[in-house]
């Protein structure tokens, strides 16, 4: 008896996530599902393909699930009325159908995958150019991104300024990122604006995005990079185009400057537990390339030997 009740209980427990979900939407928690609320064309395409893929797949998976459950119920041993054909194990027609359905689905999804992959290619941002084209498109902004253990440095080469652990970009403007790491691999990820792209030491990757709306967006490093990884978030402030210009001029007066020696000091292992941000003016030209070059020549920023059982 107890066993049966416990089993029933366990079965009911499996329903809880569904109820929970229903509760979420009414309490505004649904706003937290950032991937469902894209704020830029790149994230928007990612989201549209998510919907498409899930819809196509559910088109197969739901009927298959229902079919399997119906078969299990109808052909249970205790149902003596059901047909029983112990030797029936082949049908050319069924084989044809069960091979054709997945093949057609994969062909369709494969085509969409091809389309989507080219659409959001960070190296040839057709989508971005297209989405800001037509109108008088603003000149793209360049941002060089360097990750260290465990901080972000955003360099605005044209403005000769840099910020640490905080990204500020103008709205409606294509932003071209060049990314590299001084130490180990990280991922550049702003869920509402753009998907992930690896940041690798000694190499340069690219990302490109446009923010549709002014606002504050959370950015992360998505690829594990060591002890300070959990605190490698950065705020992304999307501001009006004029505000951006004012802000850039303001930062250009910042007392802190940055050259390669300064960068090496900045790049010492540091866990940004308190969410510190920094602003630099007079950033040396070509700092980004110099960091890449140094890393390819063997520059490392060593992690100290840990004490066993401690941090």
């Amino acid at each position: 008896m107890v066993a049966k009740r416990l089993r029933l209980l366990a079965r009911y427990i499996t329903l809880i996530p569904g109820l929970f979900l229903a509760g979420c939407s009414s309490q505004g928690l649904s706003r937290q599902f950032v991937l469902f609320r894209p704020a830029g064309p790149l994230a928007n395409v990612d989201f549209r393909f998510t919907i498409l893929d899930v819809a196509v797949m559910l088109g197969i998976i739901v009927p298959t699930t229902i079919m399997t459950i119906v078969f299990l119920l109808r052909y249970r041993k205790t149902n003596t009325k059901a047909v029983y054909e112990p030797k029936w194990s082949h049908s050319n027609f069924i084989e044809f159908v069960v091979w054709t359905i997945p093949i057609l689905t994969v062909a369709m999804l494969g085509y969409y995958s091809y389309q989507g992959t080219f659409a959001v290619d960070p190296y040839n941002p057709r989508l971005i150019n297209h989405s800001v084209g037509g109108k008088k498109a603003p000149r793209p902004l360049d941002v060089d991104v360097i990750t260290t253990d465990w901080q972000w440095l955003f360099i605005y080469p044209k403005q000769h300024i840099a910020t640490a652990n905080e990204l500020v970009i103008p709205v409606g403007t294509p932003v071209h990122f060049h990314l590299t790491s001084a130490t180990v691999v990280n991922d550049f990820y702003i869920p509402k604006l753009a998907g992930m792209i690896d940041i690798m030491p000694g190499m340069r990757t690219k990302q490109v995005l446009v923010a549709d709306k002014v606002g504050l967006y959370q950015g992360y490093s998505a690829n594990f990079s060591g002890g300070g990884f959990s605190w490698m978030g950065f705020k992304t402030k999307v501001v009006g185009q004029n505000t951006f210009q004012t802000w850039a001029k303001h930062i250009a007066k910042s007392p802190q400057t940055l050259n390669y020696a300064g960068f090496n000091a900045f790049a010492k292992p540091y866990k940004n537990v308190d969410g510190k941000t920094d602003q630099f003016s007079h950033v040396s030209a070509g700092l980004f390339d110099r960091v890449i070059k140094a890393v390819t020549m063997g520059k490392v920023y060593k992690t100290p030997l840990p004490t066993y059982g401690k941090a």
Partner: protein
Amino acid sequence: MVHVQGPWSELLGRLSPSAIPNNPIITGAFLFSAVIGIVLLGYVTYAGKWGYLWREWLTTVDHKKIGVMYIIVGLVMLFRGFIDALMMRTQQMLADGPHSAGFLGAAHGYLIPYHFDQIYSAHGTIMILFAATPILVGIMNVVVPLQIGARDMAFPYLNALGLWLTVVGAALIMMSLFLGDFSHAGWVGMTPLTELAYSPGVGVDYWMWAIQIASVGTTLGAANLIATIIKMRAPGMTWGRLPIFTWTALSTNIIALTSFPVLGVSLALLGLDRYFGTHFFTAGMGGNLMLYSNLFWMWGHPEVYFVILPAFGMMSEIIPTFSEKALFGYITMVAASFAIAGVSWSVWLHHFFTMGASPAVNTFFSIATMVVGIPTGVKVFNWAFTIYRGRSRFDTPMMWAIGALFMLLLGGLTGMMLAMPPINYSVHNSVFVVAHFHTMLMVVIYGIMGGVSYWFPKVFGFKLDETLGKRFFWYFTAGTIMVFVPMYLSGFMGMTRRLDYLANPHLLPFEVLEEFGIGLYTVSVYYFVRQLYVSLRDRSENRVGANAWGTGRTLEWMTASPTPFYNFAVTPRVNARDELIWRKEQGFENTLPTQYEDILMPKNTAVPLLIGAFSLALGFGLVWRIWWMTDLSLLGVVLTVIARSFVRVTDYVVGASEVEQIERRSRTRGQSPRPDSRRGGMGVFRPSRSNT
């Protein structure tokens, strides 16, 4: 030889008293393990079982006993991996938002980042390589020779060696808990984080050598199983009559044999970087860290199919047995298994779509990945049509098989999402991916649990308790849903993986749900242990005959349960794909052999155990850079192998009359179980006699 940070001495290498971690959690774990170890060793000594343990287990070459030992090692490591999971879930629940409290010296939660990182790395390494892989290898070890009518594996001594090398890997990982530390760079070993500059401790070395040594064992095991399936089939067992599980074992071991060497090479190159200062995977000096990612996943993705194909095979055995009907589409099932195996080599890049490869490259690997969905989809349909017009009964193995089928549907849905780069970019390193591959690994775990409960009576001669087994199933399933549904959802909230601290406080409700889910898992673990205990206690009431489930279809259900050490008294002649069903129809089911023959069986040997012991010393010496120890133990391995090659007689003969006696005894026991008998009848626990 490179210089390492910290002290080093000729005698002890990097080992020093400071290598013993000073941490209350680790001390607790040590005390727990020490108590269990002392109790076990004490029991063996008290019961005077050392001789028995040595003769029947430690030196055995019997494929069933080796398989059982593989499964025991796997289950112990599964428990360890589960504890890791429990710790991670608790940490993520506690360390949520900037205002969360900190305990035990941590700023948030109770684990400092470096400790948490080791736990998640150990969890992954253990679950894939030291839980799933050994248990599956164990099941294949037990079942394949029985299904093809062989007396043992093609190379019994090699088989034992594979086991002991796997045990060495597991032992090294357990050692890392109490001496030094473990890798913090994930089970995949992310370069250049694993390089000496960013991981100066011994953790990465432990990880590297544990996997390296165990993977040698797995590769040898794969060669052995392939040879066994090709060469040791009973007369009449044509390829078209090969049981479906054996087919999947063949395809999966072809994967293992071709992919594990890639892992060995990539780890060896990493070893050269760490020990000799080369620059294969460093960022600078001409090294290429993405080369490692490519090499690792060239093994890593086939490894995923290495673990899932046997699970598919087990589902394909269980579903027909409990639907009392032939497997639908046998030929396409075989074709699908080999299609999955074949495509598995050309999808590795989908593990790093985000590295910035050209869209053409990403499109190729995307479509290749989706192609895997075709044979997998066919398999699901075939299982459904096996149930169609059958007579399904819901014994525990069938519950697990159906559970696996539904897990596969969910995993397939999310897998198809991840195969598409535009979607992948948005969730690549998020917990959505974590939830996806756990769903897929649940297919493996459900398959394993089904397979273990299905073949358990064959090996031990009695069934596992059904009531407790079902309770285990339901709690486990509830736990799975409670942990992984919220995890999928957190992925859509932009939650990235491997976080010691969650900056987003809105994740808290999901973390609480997951913690509740892992609590359900804990209950299920309790029922699993209780199931084993109760089944063992009441074994005399649950004794079964040769055809334990009554509707077995293949060869293994024709020989006695528990299976005698020689498997089949007389090698059967195979007439049909479902041989036992065919014999029933012809009325041959209970026909006894008219005469018995002498049987040639492999002798026990302590050599694999000895090589294992030397390998453990070798691994330990390499981790701590104690060069005299590595030199001596390597020499020990080489000399042992040479010495073994001079042993000329490795077999012994079991006389026909003895075989007849054993058979007669097992028949009388099978027909009339004696309720008073609490001893004997435990299959692999029974001495295999005349073996010395």
